[in-house]
């Protein structure tokens, strides 16, 4: 299996691997280790923006690289109910083989599982105020 330079760099560094705890942290996960791919995102939200992001992944190099890149890109971004880039754009950026498209969808599911509760929480607290 060959990987492009970006994939290799983010796979090897996996700089944002880990977990976040504390107030304002929202966690989302998808996939299944027994099935070969599992991804988790922790997003810390302050004032409607992502202040910190971490990921964990039991997955192939493409999946780890994309998750690491998303965690990096998310910081200082606004909360929106979608990936910072579409699955197809991520596929092109990281040269993900078409056979692995399902793994990008697992990443998207994990991302949305963290983001949507954060958005819901923000909206509910906004209404209360």
């Amino acid at each position, binding site marked *: 299996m060959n990987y492009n330079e970006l994939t290799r760099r983010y796979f090897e560094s996996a700089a944002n691997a880990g977990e976040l705890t504390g107030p304002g942290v929202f966690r989302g996960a998808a996939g299944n*280790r027994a099935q070969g791919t599992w991804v988790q995102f922790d997003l810390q939200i302050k004032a409607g923006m992502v202040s910190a992001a971490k990921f964990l992944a039991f997955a192939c190099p493409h999946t780890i690289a994309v998750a690491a890149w998303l965690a990096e890109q998310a910081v200082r971004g606004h909360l929106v109910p979608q990936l910072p880039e579409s699955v197809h754009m991520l596929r092109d950026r990281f040269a993900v083989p078409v056979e*692995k498209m399902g793994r990008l969808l697992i990443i998207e599911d994990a991302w949305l599982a963290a983001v949507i509760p954060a958005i819901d929480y923000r909206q509910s607290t906004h209404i209360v105020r």
Partner: protein
Amino acid sequence: MSAVRAPVYLDHAATTPVDVRVAARMAEVLSSETEYGNPASSSHGYGDVAGTLVESARTQVAAAVGAGAAEVIFTSGATEANNLAMFGISQYYRERGRHIVTARTEHKAVLDPCRELERRGWEVSYLVPDKEGLLDPSQVAAALRPDTVLVSLMHVNNEIGVVQNIGAIGAICARHGGAWLHVDAAQSVGKCPVHFASLGADLMSLSAHKVYGPKGVGALVISQQGDSGGRGRVQLTAMQFGGGQERGLRAGTLATHQVVGMGLAFEIAAKISSVETARVAHLQQRLWQGLEALGGVLRNGSATRSVPHLLNVSFEGVEGESLIASIRPHLAVSTGSACTSALAEPSYVLRALGRSERLSESSLRFGLGRTTSEADIDVAIATLTREVGRLRKVAGATPVA
């Protein structure tokens, strides 16, 4: 400019570097002004010289495996030898029976011919080894039928290194009276004692490039002995035609330099001392202890009935493709999956032993050889300690110790 260190080669079960003595002798044959004749040409001295070289190599190969020179048929490798044995026996004895016995953990060079024979109407029984990869000879006895014409089992497994009890299986086949025993011994020579006559095999496949010889040459050993069961000598139908070479069983001009290389490689392998075997066993033990210390590392195959040159382990808590990508710059090893596409297939050998799909994918086969040093083993341990630890951290995984 800094030198980039080449990955440590620990894949000697896939192939071995050609011994420098073998390469030198082959080069001599290739560049000689007297040794380039066609070994089948008997009408002039050039052919006689080449023919003598081939027969000398045949004697060397035979001597290394306890066979007679007349029993050795040169082929392009063990795969061709397996094909010749399996199709040759099946075709010759097709009126007597169309049942074959083999094991799920055989090499593809046996399993794929079995699949093809099934397609052509033969029945194949696939024996399942125990969790250590070993067959009980009684399994073979139970699988034999009146119409069984062939039992094909490997001596040393190419993925996990376990040594099957071929002697006992050979005795069972001989008692059966109708089933010929073919043994794929491509991984055996130079790693454990191989004595064709004592094993009770009727046919045995050999490869040169697993034994520090050249690629592209191997042999099928075919017993010339009749057995006490009244079967007479084993007979094969030829699979290729066009010159009658190799007793009419393998037509085609022999590549003298390849054959000479195989002969010398086998002669050298036969002289491997117990000191060298002990050295490799020490390295394997050092590697296993270093990896075991990581926790969550499982050994695949019997530790006691195996050759010391192979170690196959599964790593818990790491994904297979990531493991391979992580170590690739540092180590040249084989994986527990066949990467025939973007999505790897887990090893069918490890799956047959009961390993899960995930553990099969996150397994590595270390093939130790003559060039392997303690420093190489220490690089392997350090690399895997670092990378397995990193991947487990990324996965948030806690392996079961």
